[in-house]
């Protein structure tokens, strides 16, 4: 049975995973396995291999990322993903909304006595 934390993770992830992938691709193009490993460095962003690839496909169809095949040396060709111009705009907007949302929730915590004012 899923623990309640896992259920929360699923809920959180629905919105945040997309943003996390866009943020990961902000620096440089990466292929699926690289993205997967990076996401696994963060406890709440761990997804299975079988979830990542269809998600990348969806983001590509939405036009926020582009893909290209690259063969380096003797390695087999890999499919790299990079942010599209639209994706960069979307990431900027998502980041602002995310920040707003975190600020709002934190302010609510403060009002409810759940957090002390540190800022």
């Amino acid at each position, binding site marked *: 049975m899923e623990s309640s934390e896992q259920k929360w993770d699923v809920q959180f992830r629905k919105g945040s995973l997309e943003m996390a992938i866009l943020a990961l691709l902000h620096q440089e193009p990466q*292929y*699926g396995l690289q993205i997967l490993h990076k996401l696994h460095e963060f406890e709440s962003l761990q997804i299975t*291999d079988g979830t990542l690839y*269809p998600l990348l496909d*969806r983001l590509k*169809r939405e036009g926020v990322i582009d893909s290209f095949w690259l063969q380096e040396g003797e390695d087999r060709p890999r*499919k790299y993903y990079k942010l599209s111009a639209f994706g960069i705009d979307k990431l900027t907007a998502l980041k602002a909304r995310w920040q707003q949302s975190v600020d709002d929730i934190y302010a609510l915590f403060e009002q409810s006595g759940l957090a002390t004012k540190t800022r």
Partner: protein
Amino acid sequence: MARSELIHDYLAELQIYLSRVSEVQAQEVVQEIESHIYDTLAMQQGAEDSTVEAILARLGTARELAAGYIDHITIGVAPPKGLKPLSRVRKGISKSLYYLICVLGYGSGSALLLVALLKLLLPSSFGVWVAEHGNSLVIAFSQLEPQANEIPALWLIPMASLCGAGLLYLTRQTARILKMHL
């Protein structure tokens, strides 16, 4: 099963389940997954979860993985609301078509095999006759009919078994494809 065989089978199955996207797109997905599997194998050599089985398990079954791709495509092009009853009717048709094909195909296939088997076991009391100048066939248990227009066992047994087996195979393939689209 050998490692490469497992991977090959998985990718072949994935390609089949991706039949609803264009062939080029399906091919690209398969290539990407193939590259992922071999990269993971190379990077995790010696690690505990580096077996092909473990890697494939993390991808999910070929059917589940393909569904991940197909779901957002089909959701993306959902028909307008007015078409909902229509799609339900169409789904109903394909479902009844599926059962019809199963009943007819498996039924006729088994019947042909049964004819071959009966002729083999009871050569003198069972047979198939050509009647009405070639316009119809009579399949019967009988010893009284004239033997002239009976299809000889030498022909009947191999032909009936071959057609029966062929029909069963075709039905199975068709049913598999239809089931995927149900």
